[in-house]
């Protein structure tokens, strides 16, 4: 080593380091504000509007008991005489006015929408969460373990993909209903719904995570962890998982919109949320009975709310996908 020139020997401070004092460190808030994703957000009006609408709807759903003028599911507060009041007009018998009119039972449509969104959003979030956890774990396992575990998991996924997901959800829902005793059905309905939508949606998480895991597991940092004797579980969860999460975030957002629509579809078909806990889909089903007799508002307002909710979450997901895609920057 001695015949190498002295200049290449490192002194007390190596030359390839910047002096710490010369760098003005931005504050944490400033760093977030200046980041690529934040910049992309600020320069995308669609993303800003979609976020605002989503936020308003989610907050309205969370605070429904305080915002809603009436509790539509408390029979003592309902007056059947209020039935079929058109929006904004006083009722012919009681003189009460409802912002979005009332349905056949005299429940204010505005209040039912607020409570219905709670159910829709809760089912949507929980179903996506369930699909995400299941899909990510199975995807990690398939990608990291390979071999027969990979073959089994991905063939099951492929088979499931050949069926429309709503059909899979219907099937799971039907089986679950058959297993659960009749007296628990109504209270279990929401959880069955979450299970059905979640199980019909895990495949895309698993596929994306498996693909990303196949790339990551051959990187040298994974080999470094293997050679010090880390267990496969620790390598998958602590090393690989953080590196495959950003596409998962995008899929989760788009899946949320799809899950809300899937829930509405199931409820519209009459197999989803029970009438005692109506979701937006249940409200739309109830409303369509009256569409041709002229009471349009019972269908119209829940449908518009569902449209806005699904559309804005979907737009948000699209924006996030573009913002996190390094090739589109």
């Amino acid at each position, binding site marked *: *080593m001695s*015949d*190498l020139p002295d200049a*290449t*020997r*490192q002194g007390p401070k*190596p030359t*390839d*380091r910047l002096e*710490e004092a010369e760098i003005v460190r931005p504050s944490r808030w400033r760093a977030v504000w200046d980041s690529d994703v934040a910049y992309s957000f600020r320069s995308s009006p669609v993303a800003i509007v979609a976020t605002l609408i989503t936020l308003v709807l989610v907050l309205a759903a969370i605070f429904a008991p305080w915002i809603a003028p009436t509790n539509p599911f408390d029979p003592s507060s309902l007056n059947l005489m209020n039935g079929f009041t058109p929006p904004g007009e006083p009722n012919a018998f009681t003189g009460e006015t409802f912002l979005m009119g009332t349905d056949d039972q005299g429940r204010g449509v505005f209040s039912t929408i607020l409570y219905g969104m709670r159910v829709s959003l809760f089912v949507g979030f929980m179903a996506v969460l369930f699909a995400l956890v299941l899909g990510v774990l199975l995807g990690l396992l398939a990608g990291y373990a390979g071999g027969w575990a990979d073959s089994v998991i991905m063939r099951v996924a492929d088979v499931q993909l050949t069926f429309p997901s709503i059909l899979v959800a219907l099937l799971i829902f039907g089986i679950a209903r058959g297993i659960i005793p009749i007296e628990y059905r109504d209270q279990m309905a929401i959880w069955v719904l979450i299970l059905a939508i979640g199980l019909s949606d895990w495949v895309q998480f698993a596929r994306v995570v498996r693909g990303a895991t196949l790339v990551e597991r051959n*990187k*040298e*940092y994974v*080999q*470094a*962890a*293997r*050679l*010090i*004797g*880390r267990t496969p579980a620790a390598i998958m969860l602590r*090393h690989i998982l*953080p*590196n495959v999460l950003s596409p998962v975030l995008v899929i989760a957002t788009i899946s949320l919109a799809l899950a809300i629509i899937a829930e509405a579809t199931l409820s519209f078909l009459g197999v989803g949320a029970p009438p005692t806990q109506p979701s937006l889909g249940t409200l739309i089903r109830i409303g369509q009975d009256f569409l041709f007799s002229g009471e349009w508002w019972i269908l119209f307002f829940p449908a518009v709310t569902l449209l806005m909710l699904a559309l804005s979450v979907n737009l948000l997901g699209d924006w996030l996908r573009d913002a996190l895609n390094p090739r589109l920057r």
Partner: protein
Amino acid sequence: MSPSDPLVAIRNLTRVFDVSKPWLNRVIERLPKRRLTAVSDVSFDIPERTTYALVGESGSGKSTIGKMIVGLLRPSKGNVEIEGVDLFAERDPSVIEGIRSDIQMIFQDPFASLNPRWRVRDIITEPVVARGGDTKGLAERLLEQVGLAAEDAGKYPHQFSGGQRQRICVARALASEPRLIVCDEPTSALDVSVQAQVLNLMSDLKDEHGLTYLFISHDLTVVRHMADTIGVLYLGCLVEEAAPEVLFTKPAHPYTAMLIDAAPRLDAFGREVVPPEGEIPDPIDPPPGCAFHPRCPLATDICRRERPPLAPFGAGRVACHHAGEIELKAA
């Protein structure tokens, strides 16, 4: 193990990869199974506190040997004994743990070998955390040892340059206080100026910590300064083993001579470099006899029939029927 035993003893190490097409394709297209022999019957020792360098062209099996030594790949035949323990045959978990903490590896690509989502502190201390050791101030101490600042422990890998990242890799390798470090082309992804810094650092740390290196490289000049013994690989076989002074002045194997002649040299700048003749043959279907005979200027009939064994020659070992008959062109 007795004190005279080598730290690493490699015996008849062989690794065969199955590179066949999938089963269904084989059945339909009536193809045979295809096997690639990446490492073929390699034996050598690494004495404690020495540097053993493995050189060879790409595809010669150097990285495969490295991976088998650290236990990332299972040998097809033969074995690796470290401190007298074979990692793949040992059943006692506490013995395996002990050996594992004595081995570390430094990888070629400093951008892939650090987890981008982890802070430098967590990366460096992981080998110690994995065995439940005390890590207080460890990362800071190691960072200063490799010429970085203690404050760098809180940063992420993307905030460093290639040379700095390789220093972080060195710090991680030192964390578990290993005896053997396998370096798989540790400088080939770095600028030449930074290469020298990292190599100097590694050689200083070797003396300080009493380390043993297995140094895998394709760069003869790098190896010349680092190694105590050089092993030359060709198509998975060890063809020559000698000390650098001997190897560079009087190579005994025609392949070694070809490599030395082809290496660019500063003192003979502008000279006509004779490019090595021929390509490295297909390892799936290697030539019979000596694997080097299609490119060898000395090849005779016996070379095409019989694979030469690795036999003692001078102070080293050579696998050639015509050992010592070659002359360096440039000398």
